[in-house]
C-alpha cells in the first residue's frame, strides 16, 4: 500500500511538472503560474466562459454577438423540450456539476427549487441591472417562481398561446382583431369536425378548463393544476365533445400543426403562434390568423435557472451577466427576428433595432409583437408544465384519448 501511495505521489508530481513545463512553453501563462496567482486570474486576459444547457431554440444563432456585447463566451448544449427529460437530466445525471445555466420550459423550478438543486436568483446582484425595469408579469410569473413565490429563474422567452383559424371559413373579417371565444375550438356548430386539438395533456387540458369555467360560470381552483375531481369534469366535457365529432384529429408536433393548416384539413387548431406565421408564408398574408380570445390564454415560457453548484464558481459574475443579457434588447430583438419569439422587455428590442439601423419593416414587426404581448397578457392566463396533480391529469387524459 505504501509503495502504491509513493508511486501515486510520483505520478502526481510528474504530472504537475509536465503541466508546469507546458505552461512555461506557452509563454503567456508562465508568469502568473510561477508567481502562484489564483487560477481565476488566468482568465482575465480572455472572455469568461459560461456553460449553458437546455432548449435548443433558446440559443442565439450566433453567440459571438453576445461575446462582443458583454465579454462573456457561451458554450451551449442544446436539448429537446420535455420536462420529464429535464428532471431526469438534472437529478439523475448530475448536470449541475458541469453546467452554469439551464434554460428550460417552466416547471422544473417547482420540483428542483425547493429540493435545493437550483440556486435562488439574487435579484440584487450588481450584474442584473435590468431586473428592476422588467415587468412583474414576466419576472414574477410562475415560469420563474415556485408556488410559494421563491425566485428560481430569470425569464428568457415566452408567449400566450391560443388557436389559429381560417377567417374566411368561419365568415370572419381577416382584418378584425375582435376577441373570439374558445367555443370555436370546443363547441361551435360551425367548426364541428373541423378542429384539430393538441394531444399534449399539459397544453390542452388547461385550455379546455379555461373555456369550461367561463361556460359554466364555475371557476376552477387552478386551470393549470386541476384537482382530480375537476380534471374528471373537464375530461367528461371533452369526451362528450369528442363523441359529438367536434375534433377532426389530434396533433402532436409543430410540423403537424403546419401541415394541417396548410393542407386546409382543419379550420381551427390550438397551436403555437409560429405555425400560423409559417402557414401564411405559404398560403398568403392573413390566410390564417392567431386568435385574440375572450376567455384567456395558455401562457408558456422558458426560464434560465442556475444549479446550486454555480454558487461557488469563479464565473458567477459572468453567469449573472448572461442572465441580464437575456433581459436585454439585443437578445430580445435577435430572438424575435430569427425565431419569432417574444419575451420580457420588448421595448428594449425595438430600441436596439432602431439604434442598429434595422429596416423599418423589421422594427414594425417588433413593435407589433410588443403590442400583441401587452394585449394578451392583460387577459387571464394559465401556465405551468409540472402541475402537482400531473398524475391524475395524465390519467384522465388517457380516458379522453381512449373514449
Amino acid at each position: 500500500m505504501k509503495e502504491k501511495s509513493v508511486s501515486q505521489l510520483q505520478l502526481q508530481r510528474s504530472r504537475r511538472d509536465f503541466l508546469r513545463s507546458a505552461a512555461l512553453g506557452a509563454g503567456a501563462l508562465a508568469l502568473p503560474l510561477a508567481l502562484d496567482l489564483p487560477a481565476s486570474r488566468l482568465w482575465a486576459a480572455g472572455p469568461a466562459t459560461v456553460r449553458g444547457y437546455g432548449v435548443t431554440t433558446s440559443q442565439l444563432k450566433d453567440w459571438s454577438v453576445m461575446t462582443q456585447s458583454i465579454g462573456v463566451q457561451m458554450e451551449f448544449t442544446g436539448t429537446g423540450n420535455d420536462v420529464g427529460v429535464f428532471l431526469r437530466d438534472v437529478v439523475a445525471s448530475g448536470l449541475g456539476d458541469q453546467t452554469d445555466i439551464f434554460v428550460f420550459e417552466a416547471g422544473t423550478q417547482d420540483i428542483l427549487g425547493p429540493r435545493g438543486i437550483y440556486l435562488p436568483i439574487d435579484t440584487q446582484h450588481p450584474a442584473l441591472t435590468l431586473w428592476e425595469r422588467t415587468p412583474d408579469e414576466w419576472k414574477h410569473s410562475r415560469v420563474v417562481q415556485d408556488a410559494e413565490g421563491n425566485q428560481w429563474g430569470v425569464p428568457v422567452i415566452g408567449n400566450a398561446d391560443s388557436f389559429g383559424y381560417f377567417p374566411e371559413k368561419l365568415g370572419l373579417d381577416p382584418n378584425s382583431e375582435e376577441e373570439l371565444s374558445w367555443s370555436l375550438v370546443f363547441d361551435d356548430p360551425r367548426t364541428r369536425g373541423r378542429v384539430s386539438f393538441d394531444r399534449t395533456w399539459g397544453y390542452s387540458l388547461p385550455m379546455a378548463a379555461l373555456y369550461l369555467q367561463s361556460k359554466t360560470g364555475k371557476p376552477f381552483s387552478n386551470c393549470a393544476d386541476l384537482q382530480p375531481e375537476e380534471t374528471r369534469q373537464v375530461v367528461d366535457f371533452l369526451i362528450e365533445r369528442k363523441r359529438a365529432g367536434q375534433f377532426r384529429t389530434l396533433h402532436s408536433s409543430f410540423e403537424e400543426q403546419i401541415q394541417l393548416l396548410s393542407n386546409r384539413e382543419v379550420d381551427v387548431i390550438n397551436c403555437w403562434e409560429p405555425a400560423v406565421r409559417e402557414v401564411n408564408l405559404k398560403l398568403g398574408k392573413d390566410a390564417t390568423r392567431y386568435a385574440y380570445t375572450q376567455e384567456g390564454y395558455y401562457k408558456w415560457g422558458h426560464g434560465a435557472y442556475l444549479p446550486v453548484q454555480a454558487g461557488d464558481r469563479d464565473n458567477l459574475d459572468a453567469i449573472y451577466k448572461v442572465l441580464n443579457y437575456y433581459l436585454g434588447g439585443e437578445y430580445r430583438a435577435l430572438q424575435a427576428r430569427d425565431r419569432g419569439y417574444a419575451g420580457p422587455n420588448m421595448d428594449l428590442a425595438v430600441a436596439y433595432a432602431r439604434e442598429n439601423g434595422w429596416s423599418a419593416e423589421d422594427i414594425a414587426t417588433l413593435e407589433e409583437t410588443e403590442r400583441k404581448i401587452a394585449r394578451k397578457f392583460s387577459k387571464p392566463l394559465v401556465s405551468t408544465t409540472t402541475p402537482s396533480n400531473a398524475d391524475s391529469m395524465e390519467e384522465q387524459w388517457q380516458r379522453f384519448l381512449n373514449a
Partner: protein
Amino acid sequence: MSTSIPDTQAQVAPPSLAAKTPWRTLLGRIDWPLALFLVAWFIAVVVPLLGVVVYSFFETKSFFTVYTPSLNTWASIFDSGRFEVILRTLRIAFTVTAVELVLAFAFSLWLAKGRASRTVKAMTLALMTVPFFLDLSSRTIIWRAILGENGPLIPLLTGIGLVEPGSAGILYSEWAVHFGMIIALFPTMMLPVYIAISLVDDTLIDASNDLGASPWQTLTRVVIPLSLPGVIAGILFTLGSAMAAWVEPSMLGGGFVNLLSNSIESAYSALRYPVLAALTTLIVMILGVLVLAFVLIGRRFGDLSSSFRVLRS
C-alpha cells in the same frame, strides 16, 4: 440402441453405490451449457421482470415515486382505459400480422418457387430492402397527403362509386393505421418467410408431385411444414414491431387510435414509472398466455421441432 444402454445400467445400479456418490451422479447428469444459459436467462430476464412487478405496486405523485405499496396504479390502469389500449394494440397487431402472413407467404412462394428468373428475384429482393434506407416517419407522412380528404384517393374512390361524394377520407381512423402498418411491416414478414421457403429442397416438391399429390397437398404437407421456422420468425418479428408501433398510430390515426407506445410515452411525460411497470407486467402476462396457447395448439398439429430440421440443410 447403443445410447440406451448406459441409462439401463444406471437404473439397475445398486442403490448403495448411488447413495455413496449422489452429487457426482447428479453433477454428471447436468447439461452444463444449458444450465448456465438458464441461470443467465434467469438473472437477465426474470429478475428485472420481478423488479418491474414490484414497482407496479408503487405510485407517482407530483413527478416522484411514492414507495408505499398500494393497488392505486393497478386501479388506474383500468379506470383510464389503458387496459383497453393493451387489448386494442393486441387486436391491431394480430390483425396486421395475419394479413401480412397471407400476403407475404403467397408473395414468397411465387418468388422462391415460381417461375421468376434469377434477375427478377434479385431485383425484387433489392426493392424490398429500399424502405430500410428511409426513415419510417418520412415514409408514413406521405400517406397523410394521399389518404387525406384533399388527397387523390377520395376522388378515385368516389369515381368508382365506393365512397359517397364529400367523404372525409380514411385518414385518422383504424383503417388508416392498419394500412400504414401493413405497408411498413411487409418486408419484416416477407424476408424470413422467403428464406425458409427457398430452403425447401426442390427434389422434395418433385417427389411429392411424382407420388401423385395435388399442388394443394404438396403445399400443405411439404412446403408449409418445412417453411414453419421462417413463418414463426416472421410472425414474431412482425408481431413485436406491430405491438411497438408508434409512428403509424400517431400520424395516420390522428391521435384517436391510442396504442401502447403512445400510452407509455404519455405516462413517461409525467414520470409515472409505476404505470409503465404495470403495463409491462400485464403485457408479459398476456403474451405468456398467448405463447402457451400457441404451443398447445401447435402440439395438436404435430411435432413443431421436426420443422426445424430444415435449418440443418
